[in-house]
């Protein structure tokens, strides 16, 4: 396990961030996509790479940090390999999202926001995912699963317990 203070961006990540910097009329505009690159590498947004992002974009460290702490997709702490997000906004609520969330907590033995001891799955809820016509819907990391029944949800969690890569990725 690497100490957080030693976490560094890979050359590939740095290159991606440099390319983003050149894409926009103002380098600061690249902060959000750059933090996505950071999260892609580490699974969350640790502090030291934030400073690297700031240095590449030639902005203040605090300017990166204020963004990283504002937007909910950036995890401040390490999370499970797969983050299962159950939409609990109104249209999903009307079609059983609370029941799914309860089912998930029971099956995984974690509370909402918690991670299984093996670090495989984090269960969380999320605000409206704009898939209300296919409610209830969930996301596994950034991929959608629509019209989720309790039986399907059970199967999804079983699959994720063993999965190496996100099985729900659609190009």
């Amino acid at each position: 396990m690497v100490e957080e203070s030693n976490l560094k961006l890979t050359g590939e990540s740095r290159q991606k961030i440099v390319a983003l910097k050149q894409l926009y009329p103002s380098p600061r505009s690249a902060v959000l996509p750059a933090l996505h690159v950071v999260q892609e590498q580490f699974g969350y947004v640790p502090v030291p790479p934030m400073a690297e992002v700031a240095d590449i974009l030639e902005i203040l460290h605090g300017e990166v940090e204020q963004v990283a702490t504002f937007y909910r997709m950036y995890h401040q702490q390490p999370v499970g390999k797969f983050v299962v997000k159950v939409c609990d906004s109104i249209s999903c609520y009307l079609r059983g999202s609370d029941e799914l969330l309860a089912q998930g907590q029971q099956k995984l033995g974690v509370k909402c926001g918690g991670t299984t001891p093996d670090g495989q799955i984090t269960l969380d809820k999320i605000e409206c995912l704009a898939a209300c016509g296919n409610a209830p819907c969930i996301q596994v990391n950034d991929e959608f699963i629509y019209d989720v029944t309790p039986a399907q949800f059970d199967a999804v969690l079983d699959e994720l317990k063993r999965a190496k890569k996100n099985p729900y990725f659609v190009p």
Partner: protein
Amino acid sequence: MSVINYKSNQIFPPPPPSGDPTYQYILLKHRVVPGLRKLAVYQKEGGYEGLKKALNDYQPGQVIDLVKQSGLRGRGGAGFPAGTKWSFIPKVGGAKYVCCNADESEPGTFSNHELIENNPHQLIEGILITCYAIGSELGFIYIRGEFARGARVLEEAVKEARAAGLVGKNILGTGFNCEVIVHRGAGAYICGEESALLESLEGKRGFPRLRPPFPAIAGLYARPTVINNSETLCNVPHILRHGPEWYANYGTEKTKGFRLYCLSGHVERPGNYELPCGTTFRKLIYDLAGGVWKGRKLKALIPGGSSTPFLAATDEVLDTPMDFEGIAARGSMQGSAGVIVFDDQTCIVGAVLRLVEFYKDESCGKCTPCREGTQWLVQILHRLEHGEGRPGDLELLLNVGSNIAGKSFCLLGDSAPVPIESALKLFREEFEYHIHQGRCMVGPGANRPVTIGAAH
């Protein structure tokens, strides 16, 4: 493709169209044309003809006039005429920008999601035409972070378009230069508010700006900027291709064209329905979507996303044309056309709590009334819902609500109390029942034994 001139009273069949080949989708054409995502297929279906026409046949100002004539109004919620918005851009030199708002996050709204993942070129073409019309050489698509797939699809489409000379320098040999940048947000409803979107695109927290100045004068990087919803921009290529008269042939007198009605909640067949503006709720919910699910009765509906007031299930409401004026006449709003249906087994207190929780979670924290007030609203609703309501709570809810609305920078604060106020008007007795009986008046929660503190 031959174009059928639908008259405004004609109804598009419901999705899925059960293999009916006579049906013609416009915005949702991908449902009947496999592979429309790819440039070659899109072009075969007449794609980028609108852009060609704009660049070859019209001056930028004429394009704005065409869009004005079509009567196209913004699909994001406010319904502002798109052409008029574009005409506010000053005719000055220097950088100008077009920002497509694809930060679709309003509960009950999901049209952008389908349009982007299945027909990205339709949106890109709309952005290019808009850029040409206002004299911009750079368009942004601000897509919500959760639409990772949507962003991938758009990136790939931009790449395809660039390779075909449709994005970049000297587009179609006309001397028009234009770039399109796909920019992923990172999870914040507030960034759908146009000035917060601009802040976010500049790499900052999504805090709304004080206006004036409006984005048309000082928007992105303090330059003149047009911001339109994705669905609005998706209409533009069709207007250019078929003409404003064709477009204005659909819809009602003041709300022209067709739009995607996002139907969700307790209906048999939820989904996006592409219909002429002004179709009635009855047609949408009962004729097309199979009515309320499980054979139940309609209790209420929200007509235009979670920020619009509840409407009762009366015949008068059901026969209301879904356009900006029609719904306003019933005391609610067209908004984003996200129609949310509630059946008669729904406890209104639980539903309102869930609606308001959204605004609490999504308040950006800039304005004190909204940041603190939404917390208070949720606290009070939470105790009502859980059998701990107190006499006077309903008045307190209204009082707190009136101290948020109109006292915050942006519409999020104005929206947060809306579900409470409108539900109290229609279903006050259910709230009172919760206070006095400690449990729900209707639905599954009505049968539970009363245990104060755990009525639900």
